């Protein structure tokens, strides 16, 4: 028995106009300072005004949003009493908005207790809309939240399926002018989500088709989006859709070893964005899985029209295709190429191995590595050596 849950989506050009049909009194928009400067908040507010809905803005979300920010936002919501919460931005803003919403509905709640097994009875005060401005983390499509408790210096991974957004508005207007590097870094994350959700142990019939479609869209449209930017509206639209589709698979299947390695490495090499560092590990984990006969790469290779006579050939061709794509969009294929020095790598290696070893996402991998194999994978990812174990 498993489950499948996702928001109601409005997608494509002018999807934002759906806000004009909302019923409600007051909307609380959660975003960051950059988004506010781009004028996107006013664009959203105009649509809400058309619907007769007032709005207030909280534009203080930081990258890696903190519990403390979530509490401040929730306090502002309690003051304003909105009936719609809107998370507008990248993953950080959408995650922060979700956390604030939960704390607004339950002011005394210990955030650490938010989990899939606790019924919160949300939606007594407000409902939740996500509007992504990258393509992307897929956070608009699922309920997982990561906050940093800056006082206790710890990460909180929170989530309850009740907090799946009510609406997700995926309008390519917001990603049309995304800078080239961000387009590449966030776009490749979509592919990692799709491939890992297809091959991990939590894969299922409901997400399989979505994973393959998201992967197809990325291979076709990400190079165009990176190369042509706003001049290629179709590529922007398709990548926005791909990100949400992969976000659905992320919430209803899982990610796996590439994400575990990416999380542990990313904690040390903070200069490398999440999408870039996680995708860097993807080809190596494909090879690792395939060396043990695991992975379902023939299906992926077929979907991408790559050589696929058998699993090993398919895995090799998928891994190479990922590398070719990363090259085409200017992303590094090794940690060394990404600018990590040998000294930095060796210093970080033991904690990276330890963190990956206990990461829940490692356990979702179709082939779970032994501790020694994690170290070997990290070394391969540093130098580009083939994964032959």
């Amino acid at each position: 028995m498993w489950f499948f849950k996702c928001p109601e989506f409005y997608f494509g050009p002018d999807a934002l106009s759906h806000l004009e049909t909302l019923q409600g009194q007051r909307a609380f928009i959660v975003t960051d300072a950059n988004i506010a400067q781009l004028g996107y908040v006013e664009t959203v507010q105009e649509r809400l005004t058309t619907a007769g809905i007032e709005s207030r803005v909280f534009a203080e979300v930081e990258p890696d949003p903190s519990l403390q920010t979530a509490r401040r936002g929730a306090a502002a919501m309690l003051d304003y009493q909105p009936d719609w919460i809107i998370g507008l931005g990248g993953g950080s803003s959408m995650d922060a908005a979700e956390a604030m919403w939960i704390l607004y509905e339950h002011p005394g709640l210990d955030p650490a207790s938010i989990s899939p097994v606790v019924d919160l009875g949300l939606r007594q005060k407000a409902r939740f809309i996500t509007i992504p401005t990258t393509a992307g983390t897929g956070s608009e499509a699922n309920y997982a939240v990561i906050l940093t408790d800056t006082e206790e210096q710890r990460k909180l991974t929170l989530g309850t399926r009740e907090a799946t957004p009510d609406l997700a508005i995926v309008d390519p207007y917001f990603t049309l002018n995304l800078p080239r590097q961000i387009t590449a870094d966030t776009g490749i994350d979509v592919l990692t989500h799709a491939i890992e959700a297809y091959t991990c142990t939590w894969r299922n019939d409901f997400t399989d088709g979505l994973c393959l479609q998201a992967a197809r869209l990325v291979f076709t449209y990400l190079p165009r989006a990176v190369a042509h930017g706003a001049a290629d509206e179709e590529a922007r639209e398709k990548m926005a859709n791909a990100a949400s589709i992969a976000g659905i698979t992320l919430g209803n299947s899982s990610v796996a070893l590439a994400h575990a390695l990416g999380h542990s490495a990313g904690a040390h090499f903070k200069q490398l964005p999440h999408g870039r560092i996680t995708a860097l590990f993807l080809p190596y984990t494909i090879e690792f899985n395939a060396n043990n006969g695991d992975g379902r790469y023939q299906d992926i290779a077929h979907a991408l029209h790559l050589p696929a006579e058998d699993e090993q050939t398919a895995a090799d061709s998928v891994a190479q295709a990922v590398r070719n794509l990363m090259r085409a969009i200017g992303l590094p294929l090794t940690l060394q190429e990404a600018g990590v020095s040998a000294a930095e790598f060796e210093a970080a290696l033991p904690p990276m191995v330890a963190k990956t070893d206990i990461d829940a996402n490692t356990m979702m991998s179709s082939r779970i590595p032994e501790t020694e194999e994690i170290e070997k994978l990290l070394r391969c990812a540093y130098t580009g050596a083939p994964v032959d174990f």
Partner: protein
Amino acid sequence: MAIPFATDEWIKALQAELNNSDAYNKAAATWEGDFYFIVERGADANAYLYLDLWHGKARDAYAVIEPQSLSPAFELSAPVDIWQKVLGKKIDPIRGIMTRQLKLKGNMMKVMKAPKAAIEMVNCATMVPTDWA
């Protein structure tokens, strides 16, 4: 010879397997928290199995006659058939918790952060010859 499930003998056999397992010892090296494993038996009274887990070892294990006598950090309960599926590796324990086939009381995020320990515990449980009748 198979040991009847949900008995004092069974949980003590699991304790022995856990303490003999290098893999469990390593995976649960930082784990702190004791459990009630509650076996729901329909019309019959539930069986309560206590397991005290600390830093990779099972310090104590026994069937509990008076459940109110202890307040373990975690309670994990399910009907017999679900336990059989979990220990037969037909249900991933974390997925079982997320779908509420296994009902967890306690800090779920702590459990979610110890999936390797959970997997190794299930591996140890499969080493106990079990009579499910």
